[in-house]
């Protein structure tokens, strides 16, 4: 068993354990932290899957951006109670059963499956300069999604601003 493989299982185990913990977490704050753990573990896995650029984006944008925003949201929505927010569960049995059913069905389907590979895996090397390729792709093949994402971001921010605007709070 080589080092990448050990790392791989480490990250997998970390993500899985954190996810299980999230299921039983009763505090939103802990939940957020657990999600950060998962995201970081996934970033590690991305590196192992030769997607360094994605991994970096994952850490910067997700762990750095989204989660901060979420924690900010937690603060805002729990400011009244002052004490740590305790989350109740609704539909625990049925929700769990459905989730398990999904998991079972997916595992069953995945296990039966072999995936096509376009070229031999061995040919790839860790020195493959993903970042540059990504940059070129974004400017050529993926210019449309790239621009679309731009508009999407713009409108999402504007929309978020509209939704969150304070003077809109009327009680009807």
């Amino acid at each position, binding site marked *: 068993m080589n080092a990448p493989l050990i790392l791989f299982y480490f990250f997998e185990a970390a993500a899985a354990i954190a996810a299980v913990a999230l299921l039983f977490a009763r505090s939103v704050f802990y939940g957020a932290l657990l999600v950060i753990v998962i995201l970081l573990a996934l970033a590690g896995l991305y590196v192992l899957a030769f997607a360094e650029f994605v991994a970096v984006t994952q850490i910067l944008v997700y762990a750095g951006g989204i989660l901060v925003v979420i924690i900010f949201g937690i603060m805002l929505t729990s400011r009244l109670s002052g004490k740590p927010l305790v989350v109740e569960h609704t539909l625990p049995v049925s929700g769990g059963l459905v989730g398990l059913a999904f998991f079972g*069905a*997916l595992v*069953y*389907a*995945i296990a*039966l*499956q072999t*995936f*096509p590979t*376009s070229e031999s895996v061995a040919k790839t090397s860790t020195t493959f300069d993903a970042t540059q390729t990504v940059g*070129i792709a974004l*400017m*050529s*093949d*993926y*210019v*449309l*999604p790239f*621009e*679309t*994402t731009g*508009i*999407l971001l*713009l*409108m*999402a921010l*504007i*929309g*978020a*601003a*509209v*939704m969150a*605007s304070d003077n*809109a709070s*009327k*009680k*009807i």
Partner: protein
Amino acid sequence: MQSFAEKLQSTATSFGGFVPELVLSAGIVIIVVAGLIARKQPVWTALLCALVFLASLLFELTYWNAYATPRGLFSNMLRSDSFSAYLRIIIDISGLLTVFMTTRDPKPLRFHAEYYALLATVILGAHLLVMSQSLAMVFLSLEMISLSSYVLAGFSFSRHGTEGSLKYFLFGSVSSAAMLYGFSFLYGLTGTLDFSAPEFARQLIEHPSPLFFVAAAFALAGFFFKIAAAPLHPWVPDVYEAAPTPVVAFFAVVPKLAGLGVLARFTLVLQAGGHAIFDWQLVLCAVAILSLTVGNFSALWQKNAKRLMGYSSVAQSGFLLVGIAAFLPQGIHYLLFYASAYAVGSFIVFLYLHYFERLGFSSLESFAGTGRVWLWPSVFLLIGFISLTGLPPTGGFTGKLFIFTSLWDAYQLSGKSIVLWLMIFGLLNTVVSLFYYLRIPFFAFVRNGKHVATTNNLTFENLLGLLLVVGILFLFFNPGLLMGWINKINFAL
């Protein structure tokens, strides 16, 4: 592998077939900027937005002949063809109508620039969605529609609006996450994101597997969410009830048609000319039957006009799915016809629901006696409902006749009993649907109410309504004109 320069070159040429979308994109930015300048003049932003849609529409029409030969844009991310062009035209017109309806609201519209920009974004997303043939673009444009819609749904800024927004958001993002998950597997199974690519279909046919089915089912779930088909419909009534009426009218047409366009393409790939191992026809028929049942039967007992229209929208998705489920070339043409008739009928209804809502009528009972006072609006509303039901002499009937024709053809070809059941069931559902569609006219004309009002029939609204009504009647009496146009559409991958 192409060189970078060649890629840039092909990208540049792609912009040629992309003018309406460019106009829309530019329009979004301009509206946002204009909103910053003209904070207090909602009319100007509305006019600007209308101009953008009109420009987009005009460009679509001018390029109509160019769309006749399909071609891929942006490295086959998009596909420019007359099928999508037709849907884009309906979408643009719907956008125009929505802008108009919004301006009729007497209450000052807060965040008007943002509102119109969001409308334009949804229109742009819908444009992109109907053209997409890459899973990535599908996801992005779908998100573009969704995210803007979540905000639009909350634009009444009331508690209810917020609630609708939240429900829409939660339900929508979960469905799109599921869809994305399905996409990821599809990518893994076929090695490509371009679902029109030959290897995509080849992998489907040569290596069918349970995982493939699961993945496709997840992907379809996202589409079904977008067109409000059962079982991914529960958000619909809440959102329809909570959102401002122009927005609801918009939701009832634009995202639905956009989703329908991509669904038609996607399921055609899945079906793979009948070579697929899974019977997607069965799936579509089952979903159609379920949507019809759920939509129609739940609508029967609604008390709120908009909520009722929400369920009706679910049922209409069932009818639209019928057009796809036939899996016949002319089925797509018929579908487009029905979609057009649906769009017109739906806008007539919402135009006047909005009209009456402004007068203070929103629950069904409150409509009592309105037909006596507001005769023309009520009559137009009635005609809209008749068209949605699918009775002559409206385009709705012709559309229904057409899609069920293709279904019967499909049955003759395949002999699958589910197709026959869908046909019988769908037509019988017409009876059920009439029951609730007629409830508002029933209250309006039959019940007595105490309304004292002088009415002005010569409003622009009524002229527009008249235009739409004439249109829907024209679709019945001379369907050849539109159908001749639709028939020129070549729908293939």
